[in-house]
C-alpha cells in the first residue's frame, strides 16, 4: 500500500473517530435515557441466580447466548472443514511436564469453581470454558496432540453439548406449557446450572479444538494410494454431527 493512500485512510478514519466522539459526548451530556440495567437488577430475584450478569446471559437474554454458542460451533466447523490439523509439538521436557502436571488440575479445579460461583458472584460458563480451553492449549504445547480432548467421535459430542442441552431444555419447557427458555422459578437455578455446565464443557472443547487448528488428529493411518481417509466420504462426518 502506498504512503499517500495510507495517509488518506488515516485522515478519513480520524474524521470518523471525531464524529463518534462528538456523538458519544452528546449522548453523555444529553437527557438520560431509559436503560436496561435497573430493570435487570429489579427482576433479579425472579431469575434463579443472584449475580446480574449471569441472569442476563442465561435468563433474560438466553436466546442470545444460545445463538452465540451456535456461532462458536460454526467457527469450529469452519476450522475442521479446512482439513486435518497441523502436526503437534514435541514431547515435553521434565520442567514443562512438571509445570503441566501442576497447572492442569488447578485449572480444572478453578474452572469448576468459576462455574459454580457464577450463580452469585462474577464467574460463569464463559470464563470457566475459556480457562478449560487454555488448559487444553497448554496440554497441546506439552506434546499432547489432541490438546487433551477425546477421540474425534467423542469430541463431536462434546462440542455440540452446549447447544444441544440448551435447546433440549428450551424445547422441554415449551412442551410443558412454559415458553421456550422461560424457566419456572422453582427450578430456574438448577436448569441454569445444567445449561452452564454443558456450555462450559462445550466452550472449553471448542476453544481447545480451535487451537489445534484442523480436524482432530487420531491414530495416523498409513497413507492409502488413492485418497486419505479424512478427505474421503464427507457424508459420514455430517451424519455424526
Amino acid at each position, binding site marked *: 500500500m502506498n504512503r499517500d493512500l495510507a495517509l488518506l485512510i488515516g485522515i478519513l478514519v480520524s474524521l470518523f473517530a471525531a464524529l463518534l466522539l462528538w456523538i458519544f459526548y452528546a449522548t453523555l451530556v444529553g437527557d438520560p435515557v431509559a436503560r436496561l440495567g435497573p430493570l435487570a437488577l429489579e427482576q433479579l430475584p425472579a431469575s434463579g441466580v443472584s449475580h446480574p450478569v449471569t441472569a442476563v446471559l442465561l435468563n433474560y437474554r438466553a436466546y442470545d447466548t444460545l445463538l452465540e454458542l451456535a456461532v462458536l460451533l460454526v467457527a469450529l466447523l469452519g476450522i475442521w472443514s479446512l482439513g486435518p490439523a497441523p502436526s503437534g*509439538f514435541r514431547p515435553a521436557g521434565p520442567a514443562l511436564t512438571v509445570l503441566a502436571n501442576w497447572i492442569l488440575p488447578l485449572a480444572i479445579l*478453578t474452572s469448576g469453581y468459576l462455574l459454580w*460461583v457464577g450463580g452469585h458472584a462474577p464467574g460463569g460458563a464463559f470464563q470457566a470454558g475459556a480457562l478449560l480451553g487454555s488448559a487444553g492449549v497448554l496440554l497441546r*504445547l506439552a506434546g499432547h496432540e489432541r490438546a487433551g480432548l477425546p477421540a474425534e467421535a467423542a469430541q463431536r459430542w462434546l462440542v455440540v453439548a452446549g447447544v444441544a442441552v440448551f435447546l433440549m431444555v428450551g424445547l422441554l419447557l415449551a412442551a410443558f406449557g412454559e415458553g421456550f427458555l422461560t424457566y419456572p422459578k422453582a427450578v430456574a437455578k438448577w436448569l441454569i446450572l445444567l445449561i452452564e455446565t454443558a456450555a462450559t464443557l462445550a466452550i472449553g472443547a471448542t476453544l481447545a479444538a480451535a487451537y489445534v487448528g484442523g480436524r482432530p488428529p487420531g491414530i495416523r493411518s498409513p497413507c492409502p494410494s488413492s485418497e486419505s481417509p479424512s478427505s474421503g466420504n464427507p457424508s459420514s462426518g455430517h451424519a455424526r454431527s
Partner: protein
Amino acid sequence: MSMPAVFLALALLLLVTMTAGLLRIVIGPSPADRMMAAQLLGTSGIGVLVLLASALEMPALIDVGLIFALLAAVSVTAFTRRRIDQD
C-alpha cells in the same frame, strides 16, 4: 490516609513500574527480552489486581489475579515450543 487510599497508591506505584517494564517490550531488542517483559507484566498485574480488590472492595478481582497466575506460563510456553516436524 485511609486504608483503601494506601492500597490505591501502592497499586499506582506498581502500575508505574509496569509501564517502565513495558518499554522493554517495545524496544526489545531480542524476542526473548520482549517475552520476559510480557511475563513481568503478568506478575505485577496480579499485585495490582489484589491491591485493587481491597481498594475498590471487589473481592472478585482476586479471581482475576488467580487466572493471571494460572495462565502466565501458557504464552511463554507457546513462545518456546517446537513442532515435531521442525528442526
